[in-house]
């Protein structure tokens, strides 16, 4: 009976199944990819057995870690240590590969054996590179080719495999080359420490830890910082999947509600024939569970297929190798199960609660639609939506959630762009922002400090302000951004003191307004950042959110704290007159080929961070369009299905196919328009609420522009068209006689 009921509404069941399936697929696929990223990454920094990894404490990722090379000698003297090998990790961005991981080791180090050369030969000297198999594929390069990084050619002498996707989408160069790429002079990312045979591990860890508070020692394969990293990834994946689930879940609820409502009379008959309430409830719940289970299985298959497809994508594919754990599938199927339960409970409860007499009298079909309000307003297509208010609302909410996500992302991206464009030093029109070229993340940018005096000496340059950017992410400070600025530099003018005074000594810090409020600090207090104590001497505000969620240290102190002597993150260049800016920018580019110099007003669009956010918005719109399209189709199929007789009447009265087609499309567009409105309101509302959150809220300064809403409306329009086509075609194809006979 259950299966027969579902088969009776084959198309609708199929669409519901698909809707759930896509949601579940998103959960599984994104979950597997997040797992994969975390595991992959963990093994990237794994060495052999009997080995320890030494990295900088508080670095969330080895590429952020920075240790003094001289530490190697001190490590070698630790009892129990047999071998110490420095390593450098750096992310670089190339056109074909947005994330290329560069490893640097001494040519004769044991760590290099991990990279199994399958073509050509191993690494011998500077200027050579062994390329991972996946990277070679993405870059379309082989042995003998030359890869240019920051203007310097590297000859590819071999191709390696390791079995790890992320590693294989990278390249290995000698330590000094990697140091140059990462701008880590005399510094490295980590040390791989080999222990003596039979040596107990724990005492060595303790001894190393005692050398320096700023060190983190982990056993290979279990780098603790990755915990945090994978949690972030998983959270993000679940967030995106959650959107798909919400949309799909609401669509499913809708389908169940409608299938119960239109069978009201049947349910009345069952009740009149002596079926108990519980039995009716069980029947309907079983139906929805069957649907969701089917959707879950379909979703699992689809999810695996999607993940495999993603892993084959050129370039980023290597980042997206899924790892299927039972947990991933459990999450996916669990989601489907919950959807089935939630989607089934309300209609089941409603059906079981009906008095048999009422249910038997139920008119069914399109109902009679007489109910005050808007029942007489607007065109027929709109009234049909009003007639089924509940369904329309549920469908519109589902789609609206997708639209809301887009609106929120749009608002945030705009906000970030505006904030980045308002960075210090860009207060004057025509100022220039200089950062390292081709780094995937702004905080990874590194510039040689000597560049400051070189640029200062250029014609038309008024002032150059170097800035160091770093951050702490810990339990105490979920996100604390540290800026290192020369107290006397022009960039300092940008930070308006609202309390206290400026920095005079290295152990003093200025706090941003939001940070001071969030963490409850005042001038005169003492604060501990990354294990160092500072005295708060003043509070500043700038109007740029992310500048206010942290503090400012003296440039030298920030360099010391982040262990990057003589290296800075950005330069802000002020020119004499705005007209000179372009010429100065060209001059900087010519002189320093591996930096990117942008007019500050264009800076944001050029950063990879913003490009990634925009790519993410694109991915989410696609997901919203797929899932939302299914929901719209489903809703419209239901809508025309119950109006079969009416459509037959219209055809019998001489309405042409085209006219019916038009009306259904119109209805679908109205539905999506409603969703767009609802979603826009929801998006603005949610984001406004989010800005009130502690710690992170201050970072969110949404900026609304017409484009964001136009984009959301555009997505809704596409949904309306996509979702309307099939039902409209079906409605137009109805034979009048068949439609009129329809019960």
């Amino acid at each position, binding site marked *: 009976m259950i299966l027969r009921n579902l088969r009776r509404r084959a198309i609708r069941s199929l669409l519901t199944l698909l809707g759930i399936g896509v949601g579940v697929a998103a959960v599984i696929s994104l979950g597997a990819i997040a797992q994969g990223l975390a595991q992959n990454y963990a093994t990237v920094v794994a060495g052999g057995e009997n080995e320890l990894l030494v990295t900088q404490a508080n670095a969330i990722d080895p590429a952020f870690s920075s240790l003094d090379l001289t530490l190697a000698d001190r490590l070698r003297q630790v009892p129990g240590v047999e071998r110490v090998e420095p390593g450098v990790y750096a992310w670089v961005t190339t056109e074909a590969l947005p994330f290329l991981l560069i490893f640097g080791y001494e040519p004769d180090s044991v760590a290099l054996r991990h990279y199994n050369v399958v073509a050509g030969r191993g690494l011998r000297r500077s200027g050579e590179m062994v390329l991972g198999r996946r990277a070679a594929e993405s870059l379309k390069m082989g042995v003998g080719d030359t890869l240019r990084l920051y203007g310097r050619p590297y000859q590819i002498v071999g191709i390696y495999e390791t079995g790890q996707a992320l590693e294989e989408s990278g390249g290995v160069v000698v330590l000094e080359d990697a140091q140059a790429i990462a701008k880590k002079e005399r510094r490295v990312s980590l040390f791989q420490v080999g222990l003596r045979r039979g040596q107990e591990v724990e005492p060595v860890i303790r001894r190393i830890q005692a050398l320096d508070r700023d060190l983190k020692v982990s056993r290979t394969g279990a780098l603790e910082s990755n915990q945090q990293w994978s949690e972030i990834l998983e959270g993000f994946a679940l967030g995106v999947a959650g959107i798909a689930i919400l949309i799909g879940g609401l669509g499913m609820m809708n389908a169940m509600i409608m299938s119960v409502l239109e069978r009201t009379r049947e349910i009345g008959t069952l009740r009149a024939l002596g079926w108990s309430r519980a039995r009716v409830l069980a029947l309907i719940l079983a139906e929805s569970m069957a649907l969701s289970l089917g959707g879950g299985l379909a979703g699992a298959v689809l999810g695996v297929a999607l993940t495999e497809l993603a892993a084959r994508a050129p370039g980023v594919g290597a980042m997206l190798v899924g790892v299927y754990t039972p947990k991933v599938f459990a999450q996916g199927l669990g989601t489907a199960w919950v959807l089935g339960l939630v989607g089934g409970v309300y209609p089941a409860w409603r059906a079981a609660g009906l008095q048999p007499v009422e249910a038997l009298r139920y008119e069914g079909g399109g109902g*009679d639609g007489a109910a005050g309000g808007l029942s*007489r307003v607007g065109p027929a297509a709109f009234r049909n939506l009003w007639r089924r208010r509940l369904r329309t609302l549920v469908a519109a909410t589902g789609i609206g959630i997708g639209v809301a996500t887009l609106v929120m992302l749009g608002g945030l991206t705009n906000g970030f762009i505006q904030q980045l464009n308002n960075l210090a030093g860009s207060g004057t029109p025509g100022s220039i922002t200089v950062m390292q070229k081709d780094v995937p993340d702004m905080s990874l940018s590194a510039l040689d400090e000597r560049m400051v005096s070189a640029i200062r000496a250029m014609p038309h340059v008024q002032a150059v302000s170097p800035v160091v950017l770093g951050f702490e992410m810990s339990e105490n400070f979920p996100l604390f951004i540290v800026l290192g600025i020369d107290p006397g530099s022009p960039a300092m003018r940008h930070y308006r003191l609202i309390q206290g005074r400026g920095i005079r000594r290295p152990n003093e810090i200025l706090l941003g307004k939001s940070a001071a409020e969030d963490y409850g600090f005042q001038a005169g207090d003492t604060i501990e950042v990354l294990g160092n104590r500072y005295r708060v001497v003043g509070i500043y505000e700038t109007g740029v959110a992310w500048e206010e969620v942290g503090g400012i240290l003296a440039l030298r102190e920030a360099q010391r704290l982040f262990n990057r002597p003589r290296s800075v993150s950005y330069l802000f260049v002020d020119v004499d007159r705005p007209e000179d800016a372009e010429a100065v920018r060209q001059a900087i580019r010519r002189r320093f080929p591996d930096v990117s110099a942008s007019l500050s007003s264009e800076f944001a669009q050029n950063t990879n961070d913003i490009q990634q956010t925009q790519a993410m918005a694109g991915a989410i719109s696609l997901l919203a369009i797929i899932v939302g399209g299914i929901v719209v189709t489903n809703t419209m199929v239901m809508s025309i299905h119950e109006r079969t007789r*009416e459509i037959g*009447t219209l055809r*019998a*009265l*001489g*309405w042409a196919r085209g006219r019916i087609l038009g009306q259904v499309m119109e209805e679908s567009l109205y539905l999506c328009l409603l969703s767009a409105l609802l979603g826009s309101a929801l998006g603005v509302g949610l984001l406004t609420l989010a800005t009130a959150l502690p710690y992170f809220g201050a970072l969110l300064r949404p900026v609304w522009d017409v484009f964001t809403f136009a984009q959301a409306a555009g997505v809704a329009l596409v949904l309306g068209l996509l979702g309307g086509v099939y039902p409209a075609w079906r409605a137009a194809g109805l034979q009048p*006689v068949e439609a009129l006979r329809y019960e």
Partner: protein
Amino acid sequence: MSTEPLIRTENLTKVYGRGPTAVRALDGVSLEVYPGEFLAVMGPSGCGKSTLLNLLGALDRPTEGQVWVQGEDLARLKDVDRFRAQTVGFVFQLHNLLPTLTALENVEIPMQGLGMGRGPRRERARELLARVGLADRMDHLPSQLSGGQRQRVAIARALANDPALILADEPTGSLDSQSGEELLALFEDLNRAHGTTILVVTHDRRVAQVTRRILRMRDGRMVDDHRVTDPLEEDLRMLAHSRLGQAVLQGKPVSSRVLLPEERAVFQRVLRRALGLPEEGALAEPELDEQSARG
């Protein structure tokens, strides 16, 4: 009566489905209807009345045979939608009004089909609703109207584009007898005053009082087609086509608790005379058993 028929059918046949479950809903019906006629189609449920109407109104295509309306072969119609909107007006058993549209807007539907402008459409719809006596109910939704009023809206809607022919499929079927009578009176008025050709499917014997010609169908065949002259004769014909009448005429056994043998002979004679059959000789109806089985 004009020489050119409004409707002509030849050997009209409709078979639903295939193989052993195929149903011959209409079986070789040939018929001529002249302009200005008012016909009733009667017969037991399932005998093919709706099927006939659907074919006449170009809602469906025949399996065999042809239909001409105003001399035009429906199989070769270039614009079916135009034909449905303009040439025929349909009235259904369940009014089939669109629940979201007001009375006025429902009447406008066929005019929209022809692409008529909004102003003239409104105008004409008002006029028609006034004609069926609903001048004060124009902006009501169907759910706010009584059954009889809904059917009147449906009639106004059928008249929208001034069709040559009205096809009404059991229009009184869902109405109480009072409303039913009013509706029939409305049809009669339309036919008398405007000369609209009307074909009504009905079970209602009162129709005999208003129509001029009655068609009787059984199992997809036309079994009787005559002009109404005398109401008493119509009653007798009705009896003759009833289940009991058929049994008596075909000499099938009838329980003596219903008719005594001598009553039966008298009854048979009267019915034969009413149908204009010869006095003696048994009628042989081949599908007799099938029909009684359907009972």
